[in-house]
């Protein structure tokens, strides 16, 4: 599904304060896999995500999605941006924001709206569809961004710290929602998170990145008995073990 080959990216190339964000990063993700990426703040995770989405052209290496080299944004892709509030359109109501990408889907107006409402409902925002983004709390805006991506039913979903601004309960519900959606619709998911527990809980695989310039320092398969659930899975000895393992890898390369 996704193959990343010797990727590197330098910001401000040529200038004296050029910044090597990614260097020699190799990674491949199978179709239907849910890959979690963890790594220290500022290491290059968002850069990696933007490269996959074709939003920046990496300065070195190659990314292939479904066998095609990424030059533009690949088809059937959805991104939940880290800076979710800026990625919402302030001139549209919440429902319109969610429904907008569905114009690519050959749906008529009514069906777009239905799909949007359904997605909003699934992230706990039923009833907020008429509001404008600025009328929502931070966590609600983040959930609108998630709903927009979910409603689109992409084959590849990129999520950049998607649950950072919601409360613990909602976070767990959203984690389960992602797991459920992944099961129903054939979807490959790359999810960046800072929550090590979360990475192990939702991921089929957890990749740990080094501090900048980012490269892969750990790649762990998560073999946990499914279906996962918040209480028993987190108590599972494998979970506890994996979580400690990821924690060690991250800490070994933290910035502070």
């Amino acid at each position, binding site marked *: 599904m996704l193959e990343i080959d010797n990727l590197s990216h330098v910001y401000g190339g040529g200038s004296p304060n050029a910044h090597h964000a990614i260097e020699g990063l190799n990674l491949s993700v199978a179709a239907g896999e849910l890959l979690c990426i963890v790594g220290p703040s500022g290491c290059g995770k968002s850069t990696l995500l933007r490269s996959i989405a074709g939003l920046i052209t990496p300065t070195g290496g190659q990314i292939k999605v479904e066998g095609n080299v990424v030059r533009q944004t690949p088809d059937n892709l959805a991104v939940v941006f880290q800076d979710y509030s800026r990625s919402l359109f302030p001139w*549209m109501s919440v429902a319109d924001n969610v429904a907008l990408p569905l114009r690519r889907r050959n749906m008529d107006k009514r069906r777009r709206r239905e799909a949007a409402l359904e997605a909003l409902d699934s992230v706990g925002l039923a009833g907020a569809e008429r509001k404008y983004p600025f009328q929502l709390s931070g966590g609600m805006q983040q959930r609108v961004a998630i709903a927009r991506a979910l409603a689109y039913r992409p084959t590849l979903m990129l999520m950049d710290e998607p649950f950072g601004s919601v409360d613990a309960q909602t976070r767990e519900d959203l984690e389960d929602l992602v797991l459920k959606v992944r099961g129903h619709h054939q979807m490959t998911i790359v999810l960046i998170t800072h929550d090590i527990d979360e990475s192990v809980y939702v991921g089929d695989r957890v990749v740990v990145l080094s501090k900048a310039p980012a490269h892969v320092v750990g790649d762990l398969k998560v073999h946990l008995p499914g279906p996962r659930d918040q209480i028993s899975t987190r108590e599972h000895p494998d979970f506890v073990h994996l979580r400690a393992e990821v924690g060690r890898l991250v800490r070994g390369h933290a910035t502070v």
Partner: protein
Amino acid sequence: MSATTLSRARPAPATTRWSRRAAGALAFAALIELLSRTGVADPAFLPPATEIVGRAVTLVSDSAFRGHALTSLLAWAMGLGLAALIAVPLGLLLGSVPIIDAATRSIVEFLRPIPSVALIPLVALVIGTGLQLRVTLVVYASLWPILYNTMYGLRGVDPLAKESLRSYGFGPLAVLLRVSLPSSAPFITTGFRLAAGVALILTVSTEIVAGRGEGMGVFIFFAGIAMPARMTDILAGVFWVGLFGVVVNALLVAAERRAFRWHHARLGEPG
């Protein structure tokens, strides 16, 4: 300005706002009245405000004056409308395709500072005089504010908002129309408001120079060549033009507030 004004204190009630506006207008009128009555400015050339307004009111019942006004209104509306129809798409094009902007910039910048007085005979020769001349000049002059505000407005669009739509596979045109355009729409309308004023000025000014017997500018021109010059008539004409400008602006602002509620509400302004 109170200490909190910069972060947009709660707006004053509408009645206060209107009475302030009235106070401002009255103060301005009083200043003219004073300049004239005290003789600081010769009342023969700057008559008192009361006289100007009085004359302006009586002019309404003058059918010839109404005819002049209507002629100008037509030229203004046509010119402004055409300017918007040309400038917005052009601004979107130049603002979003850098190579076209760069290639045409020398021509655009070369054409822009050519004054309409110099163009009048040339345009008149090519397309004839009358309405089409006025409309052409109005279009030519009021194009720029809309064009530039469109181009600069596009630059202010949050790149992340554009990326959001791009990431869903939308092409550049869709991003332009669905993100850049709405996001810069408030600034484009500011350009349109500017253009509305410019168009008004150009309509009347062109008529003053080459009106061919019709329009507010001609009314003003004739008042000027009378002996002695009918300054009260000139300024009464100016009064109506100015008042028309105020009304148009107010209507546009009201329309903006409706259309861009998202913009004003987020900025904490009265919706």
